[in-house]
């Protein structure tokens, strides 16, 4: 049983997805989904413990030996991502019951949870697999279910947002498929570890360079790296609140993990940074993403949209760390994947609670709600401070590593940029705080009560975690450093 955990992690949510459609009662379906997510979290915890104490786990599906069969390969890097995805899934699913009942018609709730479980299956599968084509398949499983979830949003613009994401996401996934195909053409293998061994011999060909270009563009679309982020703001703004929290905290992170896997393990540091000079492309894009998207966020009137633009900016931090092509920079990136998942997840959960009581997250509707919903707004402020990077919060830890990495390189302008964009974050978070705390409550808002406990607890769980790992960062930092060693060493 215990040595089948890598595959059970992916298969259990996959099997629960059709069960969700069979049971028609929303409460029952939610209970099953939440229970499954907690089971997955336990499995991810066991796997991480196993990897940290005994090293890499290689699981052969159906007993077919790699590189012929499909291999699931768990090392420090992807087990950490597995833990993030399953942890966020467990907390957000526990939160989802009331929020989903409020925002989605009763007869479609089982279908929503079915898509929800499929999305989690896809994300876990992408992370666990050691097979390049398997990545594409799971990517499409998670993407297709994501499109369906976004389209279930109450606002009619959710439909166009979902359609736009479907078109851009499919182009991105097809690009990834072309990249994988071209690499297969030159090496005759799809197993990542095997690819890593065979690629150096053919790396100086136009086919492999084209493959790297297709993969980078395709994955950038999924990561929402500027200028390929256009699908993200509308998708996050109009999706159901619970779905936004799940996606914001996991989907782009998993895509970024895949990019890291291809850049470092499969293609290798020498090829990615020595031959292709990907750092020279990523650096300006990250800088522009940080500056432009933080400024765009300041001018948003819908708070969900505001946080969505902030997400695109924060992705800039992650790619900035990669573009430094140094171990410290990469540590900062991986830490920010972990840390940003906690704080953005918490922030979107707080917004979901506001949506549940107020029925809107337009800025002008939130006047004076801090008096009515003190705990929810306190969670928002705490999450916002973490986003800014106040010491004792997780945001501080990852920015600290990024600044260290920039100092190592002697890139003073980048250090200034990180500090300056943190100030921009102060402005957009302050705009919400100002309206919620210092504006007089409108008549419509006078009857609003604090959010129910089942929404508050998960929100505070994530916010609390984002301070726990800010004060005692030994677990996240040491795992991130091990992950960097693994990626940098070629992952073998």
């Amino acid at each position, binding site marked *: 049983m215990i040595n089948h955990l890598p595959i059970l992690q992916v298969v259990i949510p996959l099997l629960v997805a059709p069960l969700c459609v069979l049971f028609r009662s929303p409460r029952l379906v939610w209970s099953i989904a939440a229970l499954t997510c907690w089971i997955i979290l336990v499995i991810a915890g066991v796997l991480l413990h196993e990897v940290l104490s005994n090293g890499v786990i290689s699981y052969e599906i159906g007993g077919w030996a790699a590189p012929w069969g499909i291999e699931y390969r768990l090392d420090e890097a992807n087990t950490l991502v597995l833990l993030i995805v399953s942890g966020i899934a467990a907390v957000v699913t526990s939160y989802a019951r009331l929020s989903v009942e409020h925002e989605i018609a009763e007869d479609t709730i089982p279908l929503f949870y079915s898509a929800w479980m499929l999305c989690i299956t896809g994300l876990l599968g992408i992370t666990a697999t050691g097979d390049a084509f398997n990545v594409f398949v799971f990517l499409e499983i998670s993407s297709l279910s994501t499109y369906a979830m976004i389209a279930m949003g109450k606002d009619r*613009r959710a439909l166009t947002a979902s359609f736009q994401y479907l078109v851009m996401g499919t182009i991105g*996934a097809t690009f990834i498929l072309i990249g994988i195909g071209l690499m297969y053409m030159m090496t005759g293998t799809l197993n990542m570890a095997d690819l890593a061994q065979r690629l150096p011999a053919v790396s100086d060909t136009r086919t492999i360079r084209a493959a790297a270009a297709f993969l980078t563009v395709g994955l950038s679309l999924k990561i929402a790296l500027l200028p390929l982020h256009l699908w993200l703001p509308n998708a996050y703004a109009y999706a159901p609140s619970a779905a936004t929290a799940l996606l914001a905290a996991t989907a782009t992170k998993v895509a970024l993990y895949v990019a890291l896997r291809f850049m470092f393990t499969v293609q290798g540091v020498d090829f990615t940074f020595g031959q292709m000079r990907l750092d020279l492309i990523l650096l300006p894009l990250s800088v522009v993403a940080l500056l432009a998207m933080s400024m765009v966020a300041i001018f948003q009137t819908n708070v969900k949209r505001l946080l969505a633009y902030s997400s695109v900016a924060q992705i800039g931090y992650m790619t900035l760390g990669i573009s430094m092509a140094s171990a410290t920079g990469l540590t900062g990136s991986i830490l920010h994947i972990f840390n940003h998942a906690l704080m953005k997840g918490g922030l979107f959960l707080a917004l979901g609670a506001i949506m549940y009581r107020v029925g809107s997250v337009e800025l002008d509707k939130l006047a004076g709600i801090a008096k009515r919903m003190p705990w929810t707004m306190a969670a928002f402020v705490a999450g916002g401070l973490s986003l800014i990077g106040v010491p004792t919060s997780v945001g501080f830890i990852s920015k600290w590593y990024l600044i260290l990495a920039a100092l190592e390189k002697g890139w003073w302008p980048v250090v200034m940029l990180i500090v300056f964009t943190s100030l921009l974050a102060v402005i957009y978070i302050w705009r919400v705080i100002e309206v919620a705390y210092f504006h007089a409550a409108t008549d419509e808002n006078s009857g609003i009560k604090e959010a129910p406990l089942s929404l508050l607890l998960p929100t505070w769980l994530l916010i609390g975690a984002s301070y726990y790992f800010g004060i005692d960062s030994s677990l996240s930092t040491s795992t991130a450093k091990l992950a960097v060693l693994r990626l940098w060493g070629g992952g073998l």
Partner: protein
Amino acid sequence: MDLLGLYNYWIVILLMMAGFYIVISCGNLVKKIIGLNIFQTSVFILFISMGKVSGGTAPILAEGITRFSNPLPHVLILTAIVVGVATTSLGLAIVVRIHETYNTVNEDEIHQQDEDAE
């Protein structure tokens, strides 16, 4: 290398660009889905044609068969075709719902209606 000898790649590139152009240029959402389909089909052809070995037959274990085409890309593309069908059906389902809500499938008109509503 003989340019015409690589005609399968020319077809792939032609189809890919045609599909991509339709996705970008057409305001009609159904046509966008069709463009997306053509775009994906070009990649299917890329995979399938790369598995072909000149003079090779089907990969069957039988007397006298020594050269055969690589079946793996074909199997991969079976999966990719299924993904493509799922994407198309989901895309069309969303278009149907957009049509029910906005009474049009034209991108500009939808955008206009959203602008007016604000």
